[in-house]
């Protein structure tokens, strides 16, 4: 479990950007895609996001498993949405152009299709952006970036700590569960739900105990190396901003403004082709 956040080191423009820039861009674009439901904007962003994969020399197949996973999730969610309210689109766009009737209350309407297209687009913007971020950003740089975009360095560092100790905790959990199995605790899927939850708790107890001791020792170690002494701190992993960084951030800000602007133009978050 050395590479949990599947960071794929390459040399590309995207990799060369500082983590702070990428994080800022991620957040801004995410915000834009969350606020707006303007199909043109979303569509544009999707194209842009996938184009970025090419630029960053990350091949889609390197992240394919994740994509599949998400795809399934997406389909499921869409079916749910349709199952629960097949007329959502109609309600939103205030018109109803029927295509065909399935059964009972279930019709297929252009409005519904269009609405769900927007939902899909929203995922499609998010996924490549996040994938791009994790696969082009060195985990070491992550905390530094958070601090750079204004998060208190103490909190930023607790994120670094989390990433540092995830593999340890994982290994410990594994070992404990094995040593318990050796003593007859059944961990297999055969067990009933409630039983399984109980068993996990049995593992949790020793895990918590060791973790609590860890917390004690680690915080001592950190204080002994003067953590929290100054109001701020520098980061070994941080990198200086370059022109490209400013450009990217500026670009992202523009997109946000655009999405807000469109909201006003459309007189709402939706772009409505049905009028």
């Amino acid at each position, binding site marked *: 479990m050395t590479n949990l956040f599947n960071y794929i080191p390459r040399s590309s423009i995207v990799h060369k950007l500082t983590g702070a820039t990428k994080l800022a861009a991620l957040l801004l674009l995410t915000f834009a895609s969350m606020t707006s439901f303007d199909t043109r904007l979303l569509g544009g962003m999707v194209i842009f996001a996938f184009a970025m994969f090419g630029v960053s020399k990350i091949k889609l197949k390197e992240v394919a498993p994740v994509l599949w996973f998400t795809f399934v*999730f997406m389909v499921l969610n869409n079916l749910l949405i349709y199952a629960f309210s097949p007329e959502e689109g109609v309600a939103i766009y205030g018109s109803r152009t029927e295509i065909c009737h399935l059964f009972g209350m279930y019709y297929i309407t252009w409005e519904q299709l269009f609405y769900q297209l927007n939902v899909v687009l929203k995922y499609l913007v998010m996924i490549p952006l996040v994938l791009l971020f994790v696969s082009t950003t060195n985990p070491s740089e992550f905390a530094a970036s958070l601090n750079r975009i204004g998060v208190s360095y103490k909190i930023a560092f607790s994120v670094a700590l989390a990433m540092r100790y995830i593999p340890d905790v994982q290994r410990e959990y594994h070992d404990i569960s094995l040593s318990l199995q050796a003593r007859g605790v059944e961990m297999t899927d055969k067990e009933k739900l409630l039983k399984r939850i109980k068993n996990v708790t049995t593992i949790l107890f020793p895990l918590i105990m060791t973790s609590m001791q860890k917390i004690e020792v680690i915080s001592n170690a950190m204080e002994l190396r003067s953590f929290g002494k100054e109001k701020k701190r520098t980061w070994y992993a941080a990198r200086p901003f370059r022109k490209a960084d400013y450009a990217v951030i500026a670009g992202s800000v523009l997109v946000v403004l655009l999405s807000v602007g469109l909201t006003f133009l459309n007189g709402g978050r939706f772009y409505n082709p049905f009028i």
Partner: protein
Amino acid sequence: MWKINVKTIVAIGIGAALFFVLGRFVAIPSPVPNVTICIQYGLLAFMAALFGPIAGCLIGLIGHFLIDLSWGWGVWWSWVIASACFGFVVGLLGNRTRLAFGQFGKKGAINFNLAQAIAHAGAWIVIAPVLDILIYQEPANKVFIQGGVSALSNIITTAIVGTLLCFAWAKAVPDKGSLKKEN
């Protein structure tokens, strides 16, 4: 309760790591699609009750955020924020000080479970769905039913896992006199 010293920072880091491992690798599937039995909230509730609202909030936030990142699907902000709120509320209502000194009796248990129930209800039946509607314009009835289901399953698992952890912890913390016998 509000001050965060180095120890709190570390607690947040380790707590998030634990939350991550439980949420990412120990998730037990449930009958309802898109909803898994989340043991990690039992842990989160325990840590929050022990280290207070700020720790609780950040453990939930960071832990859940990292889980989403590592899956690679978009960061599902509505639910990340809900996790954070859950941790915060439990930290606020859970009787922290007494657990930290290793006291957790029947009263404590009731208090703890009330806190976690309220927090879960708030997080999954109010915050998460409302955000889902605001951000993703998902149909109200869908998100509220999904939220209701997760709230229910989470309350139950937390009631089991969290409460057991608290009791175990309280028993393990040596009382004032007890260190005398040692060596």
